């Protein structure tokens, strides 16, 4: 049994896992100074044929993976009901399944979700986080052999929301997992997109987009564990920051264990600083225990807005402000275009425009 809620495990900020996170702004999620409610605030806009949405007890839906994150351990202790979305074996679901979170005005919440993607199923799940909330969340996603799941989370929170979450995928034999983490709202958002593999021939593509303005701390800590041979991972996160107190953190941990021969991995993080004072931390980390791999690499860049691009566009008559908007939309276009859900693509691009407006 976890000892998570005992005080001596409360992070101090000196731990590697917490050194970037502003603990004082976590609204008590990490130190048990507030009580968390065991509540299910996600609801489906509609559940199509081939999918099933149920509430199970934590006994019926035990955790599928190990974690050492203090907040996630606490979520597991508190949440005795689990929202379980099951995609049936061989189901082909074309339209995305939308799960909307409504926490407005509610007490701080511990939320557990499991998504079971049946063998050879195809589906897209979109989780929309809007409004104001204090949320500790764990989403475990299990892909049976041959499953193909696209998993989108939108953090479009109001400016005072605090959200600590873990999205853990277990990718089975020949299964394909693609995640899109879009984080534009919230006071503090700390998400752990983590992946493990349970069979060979599996692949995980993790895409992310974040835009931080003043008083926002947006943190994404990726962890991909290659223990199974012949699995593939790709990570591509892009972020923009505008405003003196805008902060982002991107950690990309990829571990290739001795047993993971034939691994193919590449991770990338790019940050665009749009104003003085904004700070982006980017820490790619690759640990390789076998040389028998297809490829492993990483890249990280953090740079200022390119004035030459601005000059080029302006010299064609495009006003400075519009030129800036074009360049920033262009920067994110690579990620957004991969969504292939037109309504969401437009929504995200419009939100980026709004962020830019507010950042002025």
């Amino acid at each position: 049994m976890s000892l998570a809620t005992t005080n001596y495990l409360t992070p101090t900020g000196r731990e590697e896992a917490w050194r970037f996170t502003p603990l004082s702004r976590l609204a008590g999620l990490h130190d048990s100074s507030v009580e968390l409610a065991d509540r299910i605030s996600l609801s489906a806009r509609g559940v199509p044929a081939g999918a099933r949405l149920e509430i199970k007890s934590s006994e019926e839906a035990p955790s599928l993976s190990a974690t050492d994150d203090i907040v996630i351990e606490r979520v597991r202790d508190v949440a005795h009901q689990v929202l379980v979305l099951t995609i049936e074996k061989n189901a082909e679901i074309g339209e995305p399944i939308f799960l909307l979170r409504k926490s407005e005005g509610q007490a701080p919440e511990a939320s557990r979700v499991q998504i079971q993607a049946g063998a050879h199923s195809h589906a897209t799940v979109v989780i929309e986080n809007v409004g104001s909330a204090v949320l500790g969340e764990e989403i475990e996603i299990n892909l049976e052999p041959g499953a193909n799941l696209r998993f989108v989370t939108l953090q479009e929170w109001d400016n005072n929301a605090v959200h600590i979450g873990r999205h853990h995928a277990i990718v089975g034999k020949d299964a394909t997992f693609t995640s899109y983490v879009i984080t534009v709202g919230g006071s503090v958002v700390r998400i752990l997109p983590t992946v493990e593999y349970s069979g060979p021939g599996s692949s995980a593509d993790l895409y992310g987009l974040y835009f931080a303005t003043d008083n926002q701390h947006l943190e994404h800590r990726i962890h991909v564990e290659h223990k199974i041979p012949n699995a593939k991972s790709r990570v591509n996160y892009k972020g923009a920051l505008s405003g003196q107190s805008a902060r982002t953190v991107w950690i990309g941990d990829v571990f290739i264990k001795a047993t993971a021969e034939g691994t193919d991995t590449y991770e990338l993080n790019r940050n665009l600083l749009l104003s003085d004072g904004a700070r982006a931390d980017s820490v790619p980390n690759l640990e390789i225990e076998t040389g028998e791999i297809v490829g492993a690499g990483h890249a990280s860049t953090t740079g200022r807005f390119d004035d030459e691009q601005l000059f080029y566009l302006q010299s064609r008559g495009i006003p400075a402000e519009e030129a800036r908007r074009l360049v920033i939309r262009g920067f994110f276009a690579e990620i957004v275009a991969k969504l292939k859900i037109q309504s969401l693509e437009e929504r995200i691009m419009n939100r980026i425009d709004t962020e830019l407006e507010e950042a002025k």
Partner: protein
Amino acid sequence: MSTLIIKDLHVSVSTDEGMKEILRGVDLTINSGETHAIMGPNGSGKSTLAYSIAGHPKYTITSGSVTLDGQDVLDMTVDERAKAGLFLAMQYPVEVPGVSVSNFLRTAVTAIRGEAPKIRTWVGEVKEAMTALHMDPEFSERSVNEGFSGGEKKRHEILQMELLKPKIAILDETDSGLDVDALRTVSEGVNRVKENQDLGIMLITHYTRILRYINPDFVHVFAGGKIVEEGGPELAAKLEESGYAEYLPA
């Protein structure tokens, strides 16, 4: 009929050792329909002249004036200069990832013309201009200048010039990095625009090669930050023969 008048233009850039003067009193007048070749050795300040007129923030105008049809160009923002009718075809066009050529062209034309072009005529207009420059239609879906070859970048510059319909165009080393076929295509494009739109051209080049395809009315030798000799096309022939040695400090 338009006229660009450059009078006693002095321009500096800031370096680690302080401000350094690059242009030292440039005088030049370009009218619609005229082609002026600016020729000179590397480092003589030719590109600085081009970028200063376009308004690049790196350059500080310390004295002199630039006017287009009596309007003070130096008082305008970069985009206002383009709207007033100036165009700079760059030697090294800038990559803008994620912004498609079609979106870029449409945004620029909308800004210059003051209204969005009608979709139907616009598509045809772009297609025609691209065909004339031997550009593949799929080109318009690529990101601006990203992964373009040298020749593709220069064709794309001339394409913009054709669509934006400037009064005066500055072509900065448009011939650099082009093979003979690309040089011919690009030159034909320039001549076509000049003919159709009565364009005035400042053609900046190091070599006489491009002058076989684009005939200058005037040739100006540029050295040490100013024009040191002026003449007709015969001056280019002389440069072809003897190079710039006599204009360089001993």
